[in-house]
């Protein structure tokens, strides 16, 4: 296919951004990929294993990195987009390093921020040792250092679902969708690392919608004997022997339950990234009740924005797993090519 004229700016060098940039470059467009951090990969680089097959996150990351080694791609790392104007059909973006980039189309892949667990004060994240977040745990897995603050092996671990999701107290009424399966995945990995530790998941609903998720859940019960207790943990404290004491209602027994734990893992939800929010304000981009970018059309235009020539991909529009993110990015590429080629502009 003949090279196409057109420069596309991709904002955000995470999974979606890298995949889209790669595909656009292959399609012969010249791409500028802007990433605020110094190295690419976004949240994916913190991830140890991916569900459902627990394939190492690095495998996917490496694929994406190779993806963007292409002459058509210009990398601007450690650089972020402050705002942009649309002059006619052209976008003028000014970056934090004062550069001004002209683009025919813009793709926002600003991704998500992990919910700050401190905001659920009653869980004492950052106050009690051994109350950690799902991201912290992934790190521990990556570093093969699964220990309590005092260096001992945890014997009893609790996992709290829906931390910062489905919770109007923190202003997020939506479901982050991936926490349930992450919890199950991490529970299994915990059991594999520490054979004789006990793991309990405290859930409100088990939302194992994705492919092979339910199977994982079944394995967690059958092969790993992980305990699932239905109820939202209400408060966390410590007792005299400095162990965590959690209070929860076992809604299926219809009784409050008190349990002593060595470690508590909080399944932090996904929120619209700060960067994304800034851009939304700067560029008058529509956002939904969940503060993520609102696509032009939920069914037919999930990659399109309310501004012609500006597109979205990945978790800046809604919580998504890696699989969905990548296909969403490819979708965006198709939309962009269509936009540039058939000069819909």
């Amino acid at each position, binding site marked *: 296919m003949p090279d196409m004229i057109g420069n596309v700016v991709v904002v955000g060098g995470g999974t979606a951004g890298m995949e889209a940039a790669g595909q656009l470059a292959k399609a012969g467009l010249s791409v500028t990929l802007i990433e605020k951090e110094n190295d690419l990969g976004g949240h994916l680089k913190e991830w140890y294993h991916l569900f459902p097959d627990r394939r190492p996150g690095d495998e996917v990351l490496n694929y994406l990195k190779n993806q963007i080694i292409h002459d058509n791609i210009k990398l601007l790392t450690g650089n972020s987009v402050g705002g942009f104007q649309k002059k006619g059909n052209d976008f003028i973006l000014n970056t934090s390093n004062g550069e001004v980039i002209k683009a025919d189309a813009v793709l926002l892949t600003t991704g998500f921020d992990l919910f700050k667990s401190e905001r659920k004060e009653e869980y004492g994240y950052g106050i009690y040792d051994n109350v950690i977040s799902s991201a912290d745990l992934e790190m521990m897995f990556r570093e093969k250092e699964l220990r309590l603050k005092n260096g001992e092996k945890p014997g009893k671990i609790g996992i709290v679902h829906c931390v910062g999701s489905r919770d109007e107290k923190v202003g997020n009424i939506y479901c982050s969708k991936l926490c349930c399966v992450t919890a199950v995945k991490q529970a299994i990995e915990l059991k594999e690392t520490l054979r004789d530790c006990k793991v309990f998941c405290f859930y409100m609903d088990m939302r194992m919608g994705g492919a092979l998720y339910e199977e994982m859940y079944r394995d967690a019960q059958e092969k790993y*004997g992980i305990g699932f207790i239905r109820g939202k943990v209400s408060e966390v404290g410590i007792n005299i022997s400095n162990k965590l004491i959690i209070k929860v209602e*076992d809604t299926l027994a219809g009784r409050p*339950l008190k349990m002593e734990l060595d470690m508590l893992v909080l399944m932090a939800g996904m929120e619209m990234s700060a960067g994304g929010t800034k851009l939304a304000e700067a560029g008058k981009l529509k956002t939904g009740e969940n503060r993520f970018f609102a696509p032009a059309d939920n069914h037919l235009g999930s990659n399109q924005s309310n501004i012609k020539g500006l597109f979205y991909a990945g978790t800046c529009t809604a919580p998504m797993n890696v699989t969905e993110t990548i296909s969403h990015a490819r979708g965006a590429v198709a939309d962009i090519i269509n936009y540039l080629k058939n000069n819909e502009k």
Partner: protein
Amino acid sequence: MYKFGFSLTKARVINYESNDRSIVDFILEREPSLNLCIECGGCSATCTTGNYTNFSLREIHILLKRGENEQVRDKIKQCMLCGKCSLVCPRGVNTRNVVFLAKQAFQKFTGHAV
């Protein structure tokens, strides 16, 4: 001891640490399929006994797992072992054996027949 016309009430909270789970351990060792329960309540819904009394296998299962044995001991014997539950269970839990083992466990550990 002085009478004030009111008294201390026992807390309803399930204290996981202090509860005794020897019964459920006995069962799980012999019938691991119990782990597969997802508390759907199908068993309780079809239960012949449950048709006449508040006997609920789902509840019994959860109470056993929490070590709330007293309540279970008095109820478990009401089961008629008819086996409808095991036919409806979506997770293939061998519910009949669970009850059967529970009865044995109580005889074994609490010494009196149920």
